[in-house]
């Protein structure tokens, strides 16, 4: 019993200490914004590595998710004779939920893990320490551009995911299953609200971009500088990002749609 209490206490203290380190790290990273504005080249380079290279997996996944939604939605809706509403169903699910959430999960798996491994290895090979000794702040020079690149990329990737998903839904619904093309699009236009649906999805993806980039970079920066430490940090990035995204998704949904 005492052993258990002791372990619980240690776990709590360690978690709090880590949260504290993470917050200081975030503050330091955000203070690097001015340096980035002075040298946009650093950010653009990272936008390529973090954003553009994640593009393909996002588009392919978005297409398939949209196609599955089209198929599932059609069978459910046709029971009620409401196939024309397929467009609304596909678009609303993607824009409100699946776009931001699945894009963030894929982003954490593709870009987040790569960032953690990169930063962790730079730490293990003393590159970060070497930079400090060259009077270059590694948080501002290395971390901040990557953070802002992730923060900017994810909302765009999530929007692309939703857009491609809607096209996938249309391909299956209209192309294969014979839903009327006119009602597919017009119902979608009539029933989706710019603020309630689209903007809420965008806000979610902005929050997810912030959190997943922060987790990935902090885990790398805080990794124990050995091969094992970096491998564990990479795993933690994916796991913690997934928890953070799903938990925050619930909170944000409750806040946005709760009072209807």
């Amino acid at each position: 019993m005492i052993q258990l209490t002791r372990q619980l206490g240690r776990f709590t203290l360690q978690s709090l200490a880590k949260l504290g380190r993470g917050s200081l790290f975030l503050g330091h990273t955000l203070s690097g914004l001015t340096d980035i504005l002075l040298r946009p080249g650093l950010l653009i380079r990272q936008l390529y590595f973090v954003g553009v290279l994640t593009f393909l997996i996002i588009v392919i996944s978005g297409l398939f998710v949209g196609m599955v939604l089209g198929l599932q939605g059609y069978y459910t809706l046709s029971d009620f004779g409401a196939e024309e509403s397929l467009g609304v169903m596909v678009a609303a699910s993607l824009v409100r939920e699946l776009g931001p959430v699945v894009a963030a999960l894929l982003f954490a798996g593709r870009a987040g893990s790569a960032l953690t491994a990169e930063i962790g290895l730079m730490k293990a090979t003393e590159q970060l320490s070497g930079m400090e000794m060259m009077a270059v702040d590694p948080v501002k020079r290395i971390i901040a551009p990557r953070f802002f690149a992730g923060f900017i990329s994810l909302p765009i990737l999530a929007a692309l995911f939703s857009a491609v998903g809607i096209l996938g839904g249309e391909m299956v619904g209209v192309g294969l299953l014979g839903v009327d093309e006119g009602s597919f699009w017009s119902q979608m236009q009539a029933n989706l609200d710019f603020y309630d649906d689209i903007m809420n999805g965008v806000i979610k993806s902005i929050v997810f971009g912030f959190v997943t980039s922060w987790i990935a970079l902090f885990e790398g920066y805080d990794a124990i500088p050995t091969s094992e430490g970096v491998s564990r940090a990479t795993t933690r990035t994916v796991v913690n990002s997934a928890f953070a995204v799903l938990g925050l998704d619930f909170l944000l949904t409750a806040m946005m749609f709760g009072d209807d």
Partner: protein
Amino acid sequence: MPEGTQVDETLVSIKNLSFSRGTRKIFDSISLDFQRGKITAIMGPSGTGKTTLLKLIGGQLKPDQGSVIVDQNNVHQLSLKSLYQLRKRMGMLFQSGALLTDMNVYDNIAFPLREHTALSEAMIRSLVLMKLQAVGLRGARNLMPNELSGGMARRVALARAIALDPMMIMYDEPFTGQDPISLGVLVELIKKLNTILGLTSIIVSHDVQETASIADYIYVISGGHVVGQGTPEEIENSNSEWVRQFMHGNADGPVPFHYPAKDYIEDLLSYL
């Protein structure tokens, strides 16, 4: 300046420095002085915190007690900005080289120049080629760090460390794991650079022969204390048992061959 010549000759001065990691005391109130223009070596067995000492001098770690004065600045009382200003005048050569792996040799050496100066690319090119020429690797400028041998990586790192023309360089185990030729090259380079550029060098090493051959002054540390100091000749002829064991590499002596353990026979029989 009102200070006497004493201050001018000492570039780095460590006073009563204590540092511990967790419960393990790494330095227990040690004091060391490093003279301008000289090569000073810090020797001692692995795990005595030699690298930690360099990080304390560079301000990457904070001591529990004591002070580190570099060129009349108390390193651990400087603001972050002044510390970074000071670091521009301190070069450090890491054991691994610490080259940035996403850039080639040329860009690695240009890195500090591009970060800290507003020089034109043409000027940077000339400077980089001069530094590379000094370490004999002008022909290797387009190689990536993973294409370099260990000795070459260290020479590139050395070229990068002198890119901003610092007043001092700290070498962390520069000779470890080098073949005899690279070793000779590095020994030669460290000595030459010190003389030609008027640097102050601090070498942390446990390679006795190589270090003793170029050092002007040697500190031997162990267990958090300075156990011996002097010129290489004085150290060589030291009458301390400990220093003798270290300098000659004897397996047994004041540093026992066996890690502390209970009696051997008793240990073997304890399960019977």
